[in-house]
Each structure stands twice: as C-alpha cells, then as structure tokens.
C-alpha cells in the first residue's frame, strides 16, 4: 500500500470493511493453526511439502472428562533392599494415583556371579598363585561391583592386575560350571566354557593398544609410510605372481624375478631383463607381468607359430613405447644389419631378437635422458631460458659424434614425442629421472626450477 502511495498509483478500490474481513481470512491461510506465527516463520514461512506433524495433533488437549492433578507422593522401589521412602511428583488421574512398581526398578540388573562352596574350592579350585582368602575376596567384590574389574582391581587388598583378576574369576567360574554340570556336553554351549579367558593375549593386546595410543605424531606418520610402502610392494608382487600363476606351477616362494628365470621351455625372457635396479621394481615388475600374461595367452592357444609368438612378445615389450619410438627401434635394427623379422625364427633366434629389441629401447631412452640432462646443464650455465634451443643443439652435436650408427636424434625444435610414451615406465627406465617425465616433452624454455 505504501509502495502504491509512493508511486502515486490509486489505492485499492476495496472498501475498508471488506478489507478487514479479507485480512483475517488471509491470515488463516498464511499460517496454520496450532503453532505460533513465529515458530512457523522459522521453518521458512512456507508450508512443508509433507507435513511431518499432523497439525491437529499439535494442540490436542487431554480428553475433558479426565481430571488431572499432580501430587507430591511417597514411593518405594523394589530395587532397594531397605524400605526407604522417597517422594516425587505423580500425575494423578481422577484422584487415582498410578499403581505398580517404581518405573525405573526394572533397570536394576546385576550379574549372576557363581559362588562356590568350601568343598568345591578344595576339590576343583585350588591354585598355587591364589589363596582361598583372596579368591573369596575377589568373588565378593565381583558380586558387589557387578564384574566391573577396574573398580575391583582398585579395591582389591593385595596388588593384582586386572588381567590376573579376570583370569582367576573366569577360570574359577568355568571350573565350577564344568564340575557342577551333569555332563560335559550340557555346558559346552555356555559362553564361559566355550571361550576361555586368555591372559597372555589380553595383556599383549592392552600393551599394544596403549603403545598405539601413546604414539607421537611423528611415529604415526612413519608407521603410515611404512605400511603404504609394504602394501605397494605386496600388491605389485601379487600382480606379477597372479599373472604368472597359470604358467608357473613351480612352488617357489621367491619373488617374481628369480621365478621368471626358472620357467621352462615356454619362456623367452632372459634374466637380463630383470637387472633393473631395486628402486624401479614397480616398472620392471609391470613389464615382467606383461610378458608373463603374453606367455599365458600363448599357452592357452595350444598350438601357435613361433613367428606369431615373437610378434606378441615384441608387442608386449613395446607396449609402453609410442609409435615413433617403435619406428626408431626398427630403424636401428636395420642400421645394425638385423632383419626386422628373423629369417630363421628358431627358439634361440627369437629370444635373441627380443632381447635385442629391448636393449635398443633402453638405448633410446638413455639417449633421451642424456639430452634432457645436457639441456638442463646448458640452461644453468647460460642462466637465460630464452637461449635454450640453440644451446641445446650445440651440446647435442658434440655428443652426436659417438652415435654413428644411430640416425638423427632428437632436436629440441621439432620433436613432438607422444606423451603416451612417458606414462608407463618401459624397461630400462631407472629412478635416475625423478623429475616429472612430462618435462621432457616441453620446450626447454618452459622448464621450471621446480622440475629439478
């Protein structure tokens, strides 16, 4: 209305008495009965999609025929052994107070502690470490404190650990149960008989727990690291062993490396593949796993041609290399005077061929590594990134003198090595290149100090 005033618009044409009537109607539409306006506004002022409270329930009043009073009355509890009378407020309906026991008496539960007779003690329960007196005291406390051993230990006259007390109590109870039972079969199901208390285990467990709880943050971190490392190694071992399992019923616990060397006729992997440094175990294991799975699939075939097998093995070995690298391997083979596909593919020849290919892959990877490092070196010396390409080429040419049989190696200007090559580690890639492999692909001037 004010807004309309401000705007100079005509007021609503409704006459005033009609307005008054419409307002209460609107009010009841806007807010539901049963809860106050403020509370309703808390919920957002809008009716909920699914009313959770039935509105009619909200202001239900007790049926008007009942007369309710509250009275301060005495009561007793069956849970008490004395006759103490206490008072509390009681809801009285039509002058009739509620009947029945104190409502909380049902929660007064206690443990059923088995008590032995002196006879039984003499017969079954004697123990060198415990006197009868002590045992009696123990059982009294157990009953009194409902097997709350921490408290019992606290109140026990002589100094005993919680575990000792528990041990004594459980073994005594067990012995009595078994002795009293008409036949052993009947008590066999009783939890005390089924699961005896193991003192040493408990002591050990609690000690370990306290150790863990009292670890410093530093120790925690170290533990986490060691566990993660162990998990990784175990997993990579599992992967290799799982891949080998179908074709290696050899019952050796030795790791994948030496197991590979022991494989029978179907194997074309020579131990030289396995000489990767320990730090690179994960990559070399994945290559071994690759080869192992190829072997397994070959075995499944039942019959195959040697040339086919060689193709598969070559593929498996080059799986981590991009197309360009494979082409360079082939070029290298040609330069060395070796047939791309052996003319006489006997078992020995195929094995040698495969090894040669792998070694060439290693060679190419090392070359790349060296160039990258030389580029790094020249960037340090020059101190300016802008000079990168030229400087790199100079140092590269110097290094090129030795590489007579290998054709045109990487020039930083035009090389676009496929990123794929670097993602999975191929054979021979050692931990000497901790810096991100992705760095090798970019032009040197984009190198950051953080790469080092």
């Amino acid at each position: 209305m004010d807004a309309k005033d401000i705007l100079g618009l005509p007021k609503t044409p409704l006459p005033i008495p009609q307005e008054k009537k419409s307002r209460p109607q609107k009010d009841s539409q806007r807010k539901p009965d049963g809860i106050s306006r403020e509370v309703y506004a808390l919920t957002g002022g809008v009716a909920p999609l699914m009313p959770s409270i039935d509105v009619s329930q909200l202001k239900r009043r007790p049926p008007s025929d009942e007369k309710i009073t509250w009275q301060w009355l005495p009561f007793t509890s069956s849970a008490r052994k004395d006759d103490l009378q206490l008072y509390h407020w009681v809801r009285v309906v039509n002058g009739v107070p509620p009947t029945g026991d104190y409502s909380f008496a049902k929660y007064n539960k206690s443990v059923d502690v088995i008590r032995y007779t002196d006879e039984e003690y003499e017969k079954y329960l004697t123990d060198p470490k415990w006197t009868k007196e002590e045992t009696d005291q123990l059982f009294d406390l157990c009953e009194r404190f409902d097997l709350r051993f921490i408290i019992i230990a606290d109140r026990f006259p002589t100094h005993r650990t919680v575990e000792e007390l528990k041990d004594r109590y459980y073994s005594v109870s067990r012995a009595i149960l078994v002795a009293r039972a008409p036949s052993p079969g009947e008590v066999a199901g009783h939890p005390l008989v089924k699961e005896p208390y193991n003192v040493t285990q408990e002591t050990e467990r609690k000690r370990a727990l306290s150790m863990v709880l009292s670890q410093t943050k530093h120790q925690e971190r170290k533990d986490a690291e060691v566990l993660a490392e162990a998990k990784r190694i175990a997993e990579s071992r599992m992967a290799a062993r799982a891949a080998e399992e179908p074709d290696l019923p050899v019952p050796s616990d030795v790791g994948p490396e030496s197991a590979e060397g022991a494989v029978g006729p179907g194997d074309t992997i020579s131990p030289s593949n396995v000489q990767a440094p320990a730090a690179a175990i994960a990559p070399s294991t994945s290559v071994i796993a690759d080869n192992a799975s190829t072997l397994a699939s070959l075995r499944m075939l039942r019959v195959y041609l040697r040339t086919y097998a060689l193709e598969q093995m070559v593929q498996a070995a080059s799986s981590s290399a991009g197309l360009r690298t494979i082409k360079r391997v082939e070029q290298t083979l040609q330069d060395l005077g070796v047939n791309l596909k052996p003319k006489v593919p006997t078992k020995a020849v195929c094995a040698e061929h495969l090894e040669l290919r792998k070694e060439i892959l290693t060679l190419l990877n090392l070359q790349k590594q060296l160039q990258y490092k030389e580029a790094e070196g020249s960037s340090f010396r020059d101190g300016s990134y802008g000079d990168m390409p030229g400087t790199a080429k100079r140092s590269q040419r110097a290094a090129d003198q030795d590489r007579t049989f290998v054709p045109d190696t990487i020039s930083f200007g035009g090389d676009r090595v496929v990123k794929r090559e670097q993602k999975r580690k191929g054979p021979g890639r050692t931990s000497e290149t901790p810096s991100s492999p992705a760095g090798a692909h970019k032009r040197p001037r984009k190198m950051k100090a953080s790469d080092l």
Partner: protein
Amino acid sequence: MVDTSLSKKKDPDQPEISLPTLKSQRTKMGKSEDSEKKKIKDVEISVPIVYGNAAFWLGKKASEYQSHKWTVYVRGATNEDLSVVVKRAVFQLHSSFNNPTRVVESAPFELSESGWGEFEIAITLFFHNDVCEKPLNLYHHLKLYPEDESGPMSTKKPVVVESYDEVVFTEPSESFLARVQNHPAVTFPRLPAGVTLPPPVSIEDESKKKRGDTKDHPLSQWFLNFSEADELLQLAAARQQVQAHIAKLRRQISLTDGQNQQFKPL
C-alpha cells in the same frame, strides 16, 4: 633335439622308427586314451617347418592364362616327414580356381597348379588327434615372377620363395610325446624330472604309408637353406654393439648429472 644315430633309417620307406619300449609303471596299453588326454605342463614341443612355393615359367608353352606351373608346399625344415604330426593340409586357392579348396591327406603336403596370377594362399594344417585338436593357419603369397624384373625368365630355374617357421605345441599329451620321441621331424623337449612316457601307440598302418619325407623330392635341389647360426651371430654382434653404447651413455649421464649439480639455480 634330434637323436642323430637314429636318423639313419633302416628302411627308407618307413621313416617311422619303432621306439624302444619304456618300462612305465603308470599306464598300460589298454589305457592309451588316458595318455592321450594326459597333458604335460611346462613342456613345449616344436616342429620346424618350411612353407612356400616353387614356380616354373612355361616359356614357349605358356599361354595367357597358364604362364607358370607352380607348386605350393609345406615341408619339414630338414626335409623329414611331417605326417607324424600333420594329419592333412588344406590349401585355399584363389576363387578363380576350380574347387579352390584343395585337401591333401598325406605327406608330402603339396599342391601343384598352373596359372598366371600371384595371390595369397591360406594353408590350414590339421594335426592328429593326440597332437592338437585345433588347426593352424599359414599364409603364403604365391610368387611367380622373379624379383629382378629385367632379368630373363628361365624355364629351367624356378622362382622359389620359402618361409621358415616353427609350430609350437604347448602342454603336449603323453601319447604324442611317446609317439614322436625319436622322430627327426620334431624338436623334442627336455622332460621335467620324474616324467615317464607310456609306450607309444602307432596311429596308422605303417605298411601303407608312402614316403613322406622330401629329401629326394624333385624340387629338393631348389629348397633354400635356413641356418640359425648365421642369424644368431648377427644378433649377437648387434647386441654387443648396443650394450657397449648403453654403457657409454650411462657413463655420460652420470657425468652430466655431476656437472649439473654444481649449477643448480638459486
């Protein structure tokens, strides 16, 4: 592994040699089926083969559609009889031939035809039951014309293209192993310790067999020689070169690493 002393056959028409009986406590003759099924793990047995073709130009007798007479074949690499392993060979020719599927039931596994065109021939080898149930495919591109196109074509000297390969059988059955134990066509493996073979059961009537080896085959003078020794030497030399280079690179890398250490940016 060929036992050379036994390769001197007593009867040239019977290349299959009767094998010494093995004292096997495990199997009896009646249980030959068991030994057929029983496979030996971690053992592979291979058969070196050569397959290819020889083609003669017909010269004056050549017509437009029959310019060459050629033979496609699969033979043992040392010209031994393959029928110890191969039951039959099926040569699939170009569809322009009559009955392009040619089946050869006995050694020597070859097929002769005349024609003018070069095409791919699919050769399917079927093996005996105790050898392998699955057949194996080979592909050979029929070559009629010599590489050197400018040279004269001769009716006397054929154009020969051969490929060497080895058929590898994994987990061979005991009976197969027993049967081929001393056969020169087969490269017998070293058996794992403790494995003994049952006495061999011959699969066919030996008297009926015709000569299956190709040692005196009419084309044998043109067969190519495949020597693994040459290739091995070549590969060994190449590996040496590569390994030397790798060592050098590794030295260079560690050197450069050392140099780079001094120049680390601030």
